[in-house]
């Protein structure tokens, strides 16, 4: 890794150079006439060295986004439109490449090298019949064809010790490791080729709180050392506030608010973001009353007209049923943040509710 990246990492405001750009991504489930629209025109940019959090209730499309952007979404997932631009080597002047337009061969070559993923549920992410070392090494072998077996074995041991596992565990089988260790192995595996982008899908959900913290701290520490960018997906917003530089909140297949982590935490601008924040206890700081969001996530097959959140929203107006809000500047025109809510349209809403204008 170059010096520059290390210098930039951890300073989200300084690093504004994009590494991964998702543009107008549309994804459906089903190959029939009318697929269920799981993602509807999502735009999201990940910058170099930053940790971008992606939050929302289950079924809002956050995992779909991660898998569709890497073309790993299983059948009957269908990418219906959009681009995923990967900005290659820094400063090389090369034009960005669209991951969704790559041939199978190009995609195989790009995978793990450019973008690596830590999957949800490490229990099933490891091949149960191969030793850990072999699974660490086969990825290296596939991309570094001229590496020797001894080099790969050495790298595997190095990777394990990097995530705090004794290097001699390379000869262990997955069933011989605890859940936390397996998750660390997955992280080590994802870093095997020093990718520029690391996508982590609910990496700690199945683990206990202590283990969660350890692993998160380790990831942040590695990010600081290696300088990769992270998309961190979780339903636990309070966790994101700790680790993320920027947070995007999704609802019904769309991003409805995007801002820096502290802004989202202290000054949410979307009623859904506000509700989501108040359904988890904060890990630090003053306690506040917990309140859930009434109702349940919408059925993507039968979305209401206009704003998809309106049926659960406390501040619903007449216009909400007729106009579908799009991501745009906030009413207060704060720099670096966007929201998709009609309350921020002065022409439609007389005032912004107090809870959203702090």
């Amino acid at each position, binding site marked *: 890794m170059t010096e520059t990246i290390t210098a930039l990492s951890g300073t989200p405001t300084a690093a504004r150079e994009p590494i991964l750009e998702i543009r107008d991504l549309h994804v459906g489930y089903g190959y029939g006439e009318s697929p269920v629209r799981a993602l509807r025109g999502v735009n999201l940019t990940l910058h170099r060295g930053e940790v971008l959090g992606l939050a929302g209730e289950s079924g809002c499309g956050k995992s779909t986004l991660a898998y569709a952007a890497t073309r790993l979404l299983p059948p009957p997932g269908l990418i219906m439109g959009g681009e995923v631009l990967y900005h290659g080597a820094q400063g090389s002047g090369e034009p960005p490449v669209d991951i969704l337009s790559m041939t199978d061969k190009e995609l*195989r070559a790009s995978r793990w090298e450019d973008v690596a993923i830590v*999957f949800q549920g490490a229990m099933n992410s490891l*091949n*149960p*019949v*191969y030793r850990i070392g072999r699974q660490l090494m*086969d990825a290296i072998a596939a991309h570094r064809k001229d590496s020797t077996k001894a080099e790969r074995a050495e790298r595997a041991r190095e990777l394990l010790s990097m995530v705090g596992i004794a290097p001699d565990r390379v000869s262990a089988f997955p*069933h011989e490791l605890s859940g936390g260790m397996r998750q660390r192995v997955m992280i080590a595996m994802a870093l095997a080729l020093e990718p520029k982008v690391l996508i982590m899908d609910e990496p700690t959900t199945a683990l206990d709180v202590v283990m969660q913290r350890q692993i998160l701290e380790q990831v942040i520490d590695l990010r600081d050392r290696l300088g990769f960018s992270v998309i961190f997906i979780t339903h636990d917003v309070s966790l994101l506030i700790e680790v993320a530089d920027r947070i995007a909140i999704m609802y019904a297949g769309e991003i409805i608010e995007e801002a820096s982590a502290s802004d989202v935490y202290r000054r949410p601008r979307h009623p859904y973001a506000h509700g989501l924040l108040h359904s988890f206890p904060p890990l630090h700081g003053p306690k506040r009353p917990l309140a859930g969001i009434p109702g349940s996530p919408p059925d993507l097959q039968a979305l209401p007209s206009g704003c998809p959140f309106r049926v659960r929203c406390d501040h619903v107006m007449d216009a909400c049923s007729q106009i579908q809000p799009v991501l745009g500047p906030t009413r207060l025109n704060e720099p670096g943040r966007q929201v998709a809510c009609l309350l921020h349209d002065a022409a439609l809403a007389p005032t912004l509710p107090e809870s959203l204008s702090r």
Partner: protein
Amino acid sequence: MKYFARRIFIYVLTAWAAVTINFFIPRLMPGDPVQSLINRKQGQISADAAQSLYVLFGLDKNTNMLEQYIAYWQQLLRGDLGLSFANFPTPVSEVLAQSLPWTIGLVGIATIISFVLGSLIGVLIGWRRGTWADGILPVATFFSSVPYFWLGLIAIMLFSITWKIFPTGGAYDGGLIPGWDLDFIVSVLQHGALPALTIVLSSVAGWILGMRNMMVTVTSEDYVTVAQAKGLSESNVMFGYAARNAVLPQVSSFALSLGFIVSGTLVTEMVFSYQGIGFTLFQAIGAKDFPLMQGAFLVITLSVLAANILADVAYVFLDPRTRQEG
């Protein structure tokens, strides 16, 4: 190793059960067919041979069940299965010892070919789901529904009678003396080809369907997606990750269906007059040679058990989770 110990226990239990079933069946049947056979051969049977048949079939009414059972086991452990009536006065054990190698050669090789071939095709069809390969499925279903022996009849009709490519029956040319010379080996291969083909054709479909379904199930496991995310080559993902795991249930179902497969292949031997255990059994039925039938059942069951143990060893070798200590 606990896994293995458990399996061995089951096999010992099964062997015991097979012997015990064999002990009770003639004793529970109405009438004493063996007694009348012995009576017919009066004078030709030695006192020893008659005594061994008495023990096998419970004809000695002066002893109680427990004594009969103990005597039965003692005799079995000496390898004495009585006299064959169809091949009088050859002992049953000798008849079976002659036919067993032929069965192991034919059925064993054909079954292994069928398993390997079927699993490979199943891997490909399961992996390329939703392409032309799915068209194989209805054909496979047809062949898996056809009785082995009927397919054998059709094979004989086409390849032996109409086209005269292969001999109609037997295990080798009757004019040859068995030995390790070229003529004999060629003759054995010629005679074995058609029965083997029949066995493969009628059993391969089951393996294709089983493996295809396992592939479809395993392909949606997370570790296959991870393998794709790692950018591994297609063959590596297909064989190293998907098929490598899908083969585990395939091997255990191989072990479990061995009994059924062997039953089917035995009938193939009958159709081809192939001198293995199945054909011997067939002759025994015709001649009402009960000692030979009972002996054949025991030997077949024990052979299936042995094959099961081999399949289990393979399974332990393939799945590291069974090797777990404790």
